[in-house]
């Protein structure tokens, strides 16, 4: 059987997250008339800017050179002031960019908008209603709190595409009921009741129990997106094979209908040239049986995967890190310092 050049990849675009940052020194930030602004281009190709508010300049992120740009846009739009329309345009352009680069779902996460649950829930309600008017893509409602997810689902008009819930796990089975009640697809993770999985076997066991729990509620297997939890290889290079082995076994056990996804960019935390590690990991994950990814399709272009040169030295170095063949990422980091990891 010949392998298709572009394997199926259902992209859950993770760009509309209040955690997302831009570097202050980067090309997207400029100073116009003494004010620091975020540059963006609208769908019609018009250049616009969004002002970085004074309140953000007192934050630690800002002092360390980062700007939470999605938070700026949502805050501006929700406040309803002079920049509200720009905030909306910003979100529209983010949705469009992800749609253009191949996103199938738009993941929305507002956990870092504020610390108070009522503010987080209000922001999620607002964002869900707003995004329904800005995109035809299905929304993925994402939070570490079931209450925020619930608020998002309650805000859905019901007229748009079927939504996704991100995520349910053994520690919060009630999220499955919520997904069922709203006829939504659901990301089910391999988190256990009492902690994170410690190897491939626990990842498979926890996910298997979640599949059973979902099917017991009458949910269809093709609505389930298993996230085996991807951990950073910088911390332990054994983490690469942990995720990949779990993906392989989950595909074997549950057949072609279930989806297997994951927060693919977690894998590269703590090491340079994350884009390269992310791409190679995604290739290996798809080969192991994954068919979806929670990822930034604008930075890691799904269409670029097919043309990735798997014989390139940089590819091999990244692959060695991910497959636990490069202790402490030593060869990879040495090559990076010599400038040999440029794609």
């Amino acid at each position, binding site marked *: 059987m010949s392998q298709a050049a572009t394997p199926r990849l259902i992209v859950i675009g993770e760009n509309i997250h209040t*955690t997302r940052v831009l570097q202050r020194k980067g090309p997207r930030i400029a100073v116009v008339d003494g004010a620091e602004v975020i540059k963006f281009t609208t769908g019609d190709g018009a250049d616009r800017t969004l002002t970085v508010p004074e309140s953000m300049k*007192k*934050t*630690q*992120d800002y002092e360390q050179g980062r700007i939470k740009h999605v938070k700026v846009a949502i805050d501006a739009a929700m406040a309803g002031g002079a920049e509200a329309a720009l905030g909306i345009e910003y979100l529209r352009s983010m949705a469009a960019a992800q749609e253009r680069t191949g996103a199938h779902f738009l993941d929305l996460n507002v*956990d*870092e908008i504020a*610390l108070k*649950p009522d503010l*987080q829930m209000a922001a999620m309600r607002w964002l869900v209603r707003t995004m329904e008017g800005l995109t035809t893509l299905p929304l993925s409602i994402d*939070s*570490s*709190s079931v209450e*925020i997810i619930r608020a998002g689902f309650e805000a859905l008009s019901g007229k748009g595409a079927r939504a996704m819930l991100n995520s349910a796990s053994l*520690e919060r089975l009630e999220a499955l009921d919520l997904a069922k009640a709203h006829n939504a697809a659901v990301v089910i993770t391999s*988190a*256990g009741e*009492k*902690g*994170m999985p410690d190897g491939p076997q626990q990842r498979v066991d926890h996910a298997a129990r979640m599949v059973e729990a979902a099917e017991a509620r009458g949910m269809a297997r093709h609505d389930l997106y298993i996230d085996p939890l991807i*951990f*950073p290889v*910088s*911390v332990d*290079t054994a983490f690469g094979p942990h995720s990949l082995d779990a993906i392989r076994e989950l595909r074997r056990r549950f057949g072609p209908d279930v989806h297997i996804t994951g927060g693919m960019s977690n894998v590269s*935390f*703590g*090491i*340079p040239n994350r884009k390269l590690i992310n791409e190679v990991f995604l290739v290996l994950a798809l080969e192991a049986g994954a068919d979806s990814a929670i990822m930034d399709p604008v930075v890691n272009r799904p269409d670029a995967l097919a043309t990735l040169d798997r014989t390139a030295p940089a590819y091999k170095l990244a692959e060695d890190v991910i497959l636990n063949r490069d202790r*402490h*990422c*030593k060869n990879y*980091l040495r090559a990076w310092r010599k400038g040999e990891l440029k794609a």
Partner: protein
Amino acid sequence: MRTTTRTAIRTATRTPVDPMAELSDIKNEIVRREIEEFVTRPEEIVRNVALFTRAHERMQAIAAGIIEGDDELVDKLTRDALDADHEALEVMDDGLIAGMGVVGIKFRENFIFVPEVLACARAMKAGMNHIEPILSASGVDPIAKVIMGTVKGDLHDIGKNLCIMMLRGAGFEVVDLGVDTSPDAFIDAIEEHRAPIVGMSALLTTTMPNMGKTIEAFVDAGLRDQVLVMVGGAPVTQEFADDMGADGYGKDALACVALAKKLITEKRRNAPP
């Protein structure tokens, strides 16, 4: 009481710092090159040059092994130094900890990355394996005991585990309460272990407020004055730490060690003799 003994040993093993010391006076080539290349803040150059020009050449070699993350080398050099009758505290301070200081600076300035810092921490641990039994046999306590856990509702422990690894490497004794730690579990551990420091971590904005609730529970239990509370985790900031009344915030595992040292030093300085 024991801290007094410890200070006495420390002072006795130290040669006075030469204020006129220069980089070129450092005999170990690796240490010299590392400081030259990676240490840029003037006060840190002065401190490191003073420290390494004073340190015995064996200690400089141990520090170089730490900086290079070579656990086998540090294991061997530490044994050799102790066999040659160097004090355990001299090896720890002038070799292991001095080397880790350079590692911390390189990490802060993005010259090295997480896997390399972990290799350095393992090298540190290889050395400490020889130092710890000697210190405890001679009645010198670990630097301090630290209780660590992720807060209630939070299962994410990678960052907390990195902190624990670095703390242990630096000579702290750590009681690991794991994940999803209730205020009561923290309180029970404080009472059982008599630890002067508690470290809490949270990765989620939705669990972060539980740090404040845990601190309130310490107040209610009448324990707040007995412990120093340090907090960390991706969404945590200095401002948030101040708001909820923590004693300190660390942005990563190395900052956590620096903070624990600072807190315990201040506590001992302020404690009645």
